[in-house]
């Protein structure tokens, strides 16, 4: 099991069972008011909802090596990554329920979660988290700080310009950034072989002169080992790494996805290979037995249930709040207040 300590295994397990249970609970909450007739705008959580059951290993394995100062950008399927990065679970949940005390006061929703305290952000536009991650890495390099940045993306995003351009920019400047492709075989209804050549995202690294690592199974321990190397390389000033990890889409692309395009056998295959059970056996081997694991699970479930209960108790935003926050609040003062009086009023004669 190489370099991963028992403490790290335990903490990954905690992140993964939290994330899995979180998605299961959100699914329940989301479906409330949407059965029998599914209406996307009904129920306590309206709008699109992309859940990440089966993706947990990439989140836990990579974020295990990050501190709050390190930046993470996530795509449209962000919850497991946010949890592993240490985003405030209660306020994140309140955001998903569209409440005033949510991370973004109800303005962002589940695809647009921002927690600057732990340098986490996500975006609903494919691959568009990559350039900002490169920018965070650039800032770290310019300021001589040791922090790194991680951009997560799906395997469907590996043919988007923003990703490919980011690989080059990061590589040519040796920036401390790690690109993590969560390869669940599907981009909504499109199998990876239909839309990407080659389908293995890690091979994009070859063309950009950086290490490309492929992990063929969602084994959190293997992800953690590979991430240790990639993050270490970035922190040491040796440039970017591209990782691609095979994960599994255990649910539809979004809630309500009929998945009629997906062969039964494929669904079955994705249900069977469970990264959490795999990690449990690593824990067992490291001497963390089922009793201890059960305690970890119970604590995680309690945390999730508490967060959901808290979120549902929070007030909805006042409608007029919709008109606030287009610009920084409070205003910066430079452009809005205290004009330099002798120049502000003279129409340019003194320029």
């Amino acid at each position, binding site marked *: 099991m190489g370099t991963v300590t028992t403490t790290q295994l335990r903490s990954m397990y905690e992140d993964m069972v939290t994330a899995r249970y979180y998605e299961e609970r959100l699914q329940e909450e989301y479906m409330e008011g949407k059965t029998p*007739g*599914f*209406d*996307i*705008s009904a129920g306590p959580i*309206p*709008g*699109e909802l992309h859940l990440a059951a089966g993706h947990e290993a990439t989140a836990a394995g990579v974020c295990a090596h990050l501190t709050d100062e390190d930046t993470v950008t996530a795509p449209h399927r962000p919850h497991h990554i946010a949890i592993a990065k240490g985003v405030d679970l209660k306020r994140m949940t309140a*955001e998903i329920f*569209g*409440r005033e005390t*949510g991370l*973004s006061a*109800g*303005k*962002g*929703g589940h*695809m*647009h979660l921002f927690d600057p305290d732990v340098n986490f952000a996500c*975006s*609903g*536009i*494919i*691959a*568009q988290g990559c350039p900002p991650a490169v920018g965070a890495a650039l800032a770290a390099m310019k300021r001589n700080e040791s922090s790194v940045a991680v951009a997560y993306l799906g395997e*469907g*995003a590996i*043919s*988007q*310009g*923003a990703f490919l351009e980011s690989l080059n920019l990061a590589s040519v400047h040796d920036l401390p950034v790690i690109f993590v492709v969560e390869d669940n075989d599907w*981009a*909504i*209804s*499109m199998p990876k072989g*239909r*839309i*990407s050549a080659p389908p293995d995202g890690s091979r994009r690294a070859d063309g950009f002169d950086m290490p490309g690592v492929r992990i063929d199974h969602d084994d959190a321990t293997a992800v953690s080992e590979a991430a240790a190397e990639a993050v270490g390389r970035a922190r040491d000033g040796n440039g970017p790494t591209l990782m691609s990890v095979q994960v599994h889409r255990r649910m539809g692309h979004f809630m*309500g996805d009929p998945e*009629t*395009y997906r062969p039964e056998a494929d669904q079955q295959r994705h249900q069977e290979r469970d990264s959490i059970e795999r990690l449990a056996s690593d824990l067992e081997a490291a001497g963390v037995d089922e009793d201890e694991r059960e305690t970890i699970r119970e604590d995680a479930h309690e945390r999730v249930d508490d967060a959901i209960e808290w979120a549902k108790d929070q007030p*909805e*935003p*006042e*409608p*007029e*709040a*919709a*008109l606030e926050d*287009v610009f920084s609040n409070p205003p910066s003062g430079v452009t809005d207040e205290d004009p330099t009086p002798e120049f502000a009023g003279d129409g340019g004669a003194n320029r």
Partner: protein
Amino acid sequence: MSDDGGRQATMSTAMVEAIATEMRDNDEVFYMGEDVADYGGIFDSTDGLLSEFGHDRIMDVPISETAYIGAAVGAAQEGMRPIAELMFADFFGVCMDQLYNQMAKNTYMSGANVSVPMVLTTAVGGTYSDAAQHSQTLYGTFAHLPGMKVVVPSTAYDAKGLLHNAIRDDDPVVYMFHKRLMGIGWMPAPDGPKTAVPDEPYTIPFGQADVKREGADVTVVTLGLHVHRALEAAAKLADDGIDVEVIDLRTLVPLDEATILESVQKTGRLVVVDEDYRSFGLTGEVISRVVEAEPDALEAVERLAIPDVPLPYARPLENRVIPDSDDIEDAIRQTQP
């Protein structure tokens, strides 16, 4: 008029019929987009087409909008008639150069030696808490940039006729369908977009607005989802003796100024309702056209649009910024003596 013969169809069915007919009649027509094949389009825009035409003509493409939309431009310049779907209009940012610097300008820059006979289909609009990156209409953005025709159907009848026309048009056409109007199972449509649709193909020419309701007291100019919200407001106001005319623009480029002016000359009162941002957009444009042409025609004018903020997620916030039929009713009352 919209209820000539035929059976009732949803807007998505009407679109699919137009595409299928054009593809049967012309081998040079093909469709590219994400999830358009096996899925049938996230908003049902290509539902069922794969089984008839196969993956070669109903093409799933990589999530590389610049590449495949640019490829549509190139194939169109070769004389083919591609239809490329941008899943949400909000995603235009990742492919805008191909749209506004290539697709929309090549005809002009070539002194009209080159034509770009393609259609860009794209889903627009909010009302279902999909937040700032998936709820915009961007009508004004596309209509602002010269070189593309911009079509916004509000009913199944219009959707079919306008799409036939779009595919046969020799210029680039941006065909913007409102998600809320498509009749998708998981996003219930209001009453109204489902109309009678003739089985046979027909075209609706661009630049002809449709008076969806005649009235003598006030003119409401609108498009897309808000045609139905305006009709709802008009029905309520009729009980109070306010007689509302509702004009559905149907195309923004070209814009049917004549129909608007004729109506305003009759009513003297104008309300423009848009689901795009307020400033530098459709509402200001329509009012300017009227004022330029008939400076004295207006006794009262109101406009409703998104108040220059990104579309928020939470329900009370989104409801605050997207005009509803009550807002339209209030605006109309404001114009009354």
